[in-house]
């Protein structure tokens, strides 16, 4: 198995093939590779892409934003990928963080990662909300949303992530809902699944968050809606429970070096 830089020239085709066996955030991978290719690595069996990892460097931290592998990929290959990425990140102080499932936890720990917070994967498959008022609708369709993203995201992460969000995270399928107290971005992972990411609200903005929840379910509710949410925050988990999201796999936000300065009270969707 060859492990090295991702092959940009064939990446789109490689991802199309890989998508047949995995649910991928394909556009995020492509965008990350386009804007940030020095931190995108792949594992290839002959010419076939079997696993990949990528990271995005911010001023104060590094976010490992993609880690995908086929089920048959060995632990050794995963380890080689992660090692290659961490060596290339080459940071001893900056916080490096990543959301992982329980199976990946040990691998991360072997590289010196610690748990920052537990998360849950949640999934909505309940159909559309219909009792959705005109006033509510108008209040969450803010035209001038960039300052709202910039301000709220910075308060939450202590990073200027605007460039990353607008260039790498935004897709043609993006739906952005916002109020003065936060923003919610959702996009299609594939024909059936919508992912809520990121969704950032100021603390104690429960009513506004509920409006955005109703908004996304109205707009996207005929498809499944997937999100990763902090498991310890009752306000957030109760909101998802009240809209009949199923609570699935446990995840953990893990970090290496400095502890991330993310205010998880503000994270409604990672």
């Amino acid at each position, binding site marked *: 198995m060859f492990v090295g830089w991702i092959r940009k020239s064939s990446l789109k085709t490689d991802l199309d093939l890989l998508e047949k066996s995995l649910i991928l955030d394909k556009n995020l991978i492509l965008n990350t590779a386009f804007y940030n290719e020095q931190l995108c690595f792949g594992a290839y069996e002959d010419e076939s892409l079997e696993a990949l990892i990528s990271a995005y460097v911010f001023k104060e931290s590094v976010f490992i934003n993609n880690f995908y592998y086929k089920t048959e990929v060995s632990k050794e290959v995963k380890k080689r990928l992660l090692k290659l990425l961490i060596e290339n990140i080459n940071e001893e102080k900056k916080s490096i963080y990543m959301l992982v499932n329980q199976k990946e936890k040990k691998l991360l720990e072997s590289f010196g990662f610690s748990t920052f917070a537990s998360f849950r994967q949640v999934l909505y498959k*309940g*159909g*559309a*909300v*219909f*009792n*959705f*008022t*005109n*006033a509510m*609708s*108008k209040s*969450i*369709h803010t035209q001038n949303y960039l300052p709202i993203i910039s301000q709220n995201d910075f308060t939450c992460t202590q990073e200027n992530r605007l460039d990353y969000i607008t260039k790498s995270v935004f897709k043609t399928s993006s739906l952005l809902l916002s109020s003065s107290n936060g923003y919610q971005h959702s996009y299609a992972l594939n024909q059936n699944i919508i992912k809520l990411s990121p969704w950032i609200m100021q603390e104690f903005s429960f009513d506004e968050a509920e409006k955005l929840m109703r*908004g996304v379910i*109205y*707009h996207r*509710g*005929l498809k499944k809606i997937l999100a990763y949410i902090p498991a310890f925050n009752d306000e957030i988990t109760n909101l998802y429970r009240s809209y009949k999201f199923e609570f699935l796999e446990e995840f953990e936000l893990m970090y290496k070096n400095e502890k991330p300065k993310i205010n998880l009270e503000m994270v409604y969707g990672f």
Partner: protein
Amino acid sequence: MALINDTTLRDGEQAPYVAFNTKEKLLIAKLLYECGADELEVGIPIMGEKEREDLKEILALDLPIPIMSWNRAVMSDLEASLECGVKAVDLSIPVSQILLDVKFGGNKEKLFKNLESVVQVAKKEGLFVCVGGEDASRAELPFLREVLKFARSIGADRFRYCDTVGTLSPHKTYENISYLTSLQLLDIEMHTHNDFGMATANAIVGVEAGAKSVNTTVIGLGERAGNASFEQVLMSLVYQFQKEKNLDSKKLRELVSTVSLAAKKTIDTNQPIIGEHIFAHESGIHVNGMMKSKNAYEAFTPESVGALRDFPIGKHSGSSTLFFHLQQIGITPSKEKIEKILPIVREIVTCRKQVLNANELKELYLCS
């Protein structure tokens, strides 16, 4: 607070002698959203390809409010709706004995069986389902209870209580809707007709009795005498029930004139909310009061609905009106002279059946 589910583009268009083209439908849908409609019911997909194309175009506007289609509770109707891509459907069933006999030969079991199969498919597709109870106002309440209970058990989300032939009085409406909402089975939606001129009143009374949504049509357009009017229900909910709305008077005027032109219906000058003369104060006592306080004889301001206040110089005008108009054109009138010309003004207006304009008053004053 109750939602407005506007059905101008479905039940409104069912008014006799009315047909909207695609361009009109798109403009009306957009204006309805801008004016504060919470949900729109926009067509009957089973009607044919053109209706379905129109519905798809409305959906393509991507208005951020729910869009619904109307269907009989039969599979062919639902399939036509699914083809359009709507997220919500009204599935209509007859619930009065008269219509049950006409449409199902009185066979209630068949009705329930049909409803079950269609609702189940709709729910499987993730649709919001409103069960439309046609002629509910003439149905027996115990049977309606049975329908609501059954509809809830198969996954329906709302029940539309239709006063299909407009026979309800407000008091009866309150009694019936209070009973149905007290069952706590499904949210109730009011669908009222205006055969006795009570459509808006019955819709609002339904809200007072616990209904969660109201069907409306702009200018009350609809079958026979029409439906509860959008503009009346909207203003009532905002002013009488403090519904949260950002009223845009300019858009409301545009909506009303668009529907009026598209439907070829003229608007009476005294039509509530939108009539040209509803802020015209002629009688002396009222004008005198309005001069002292603008709240004296108006339920809401003309600005809130894009209208103008007027004090016509007519048969019932008093000296306050004449003073007002003469002062407006730069004359400081004497009380004696006003007293003198007042009977003349009344005589002129009575004879010619037309009010005086300010210039005519000026000439009359100066020449007297």
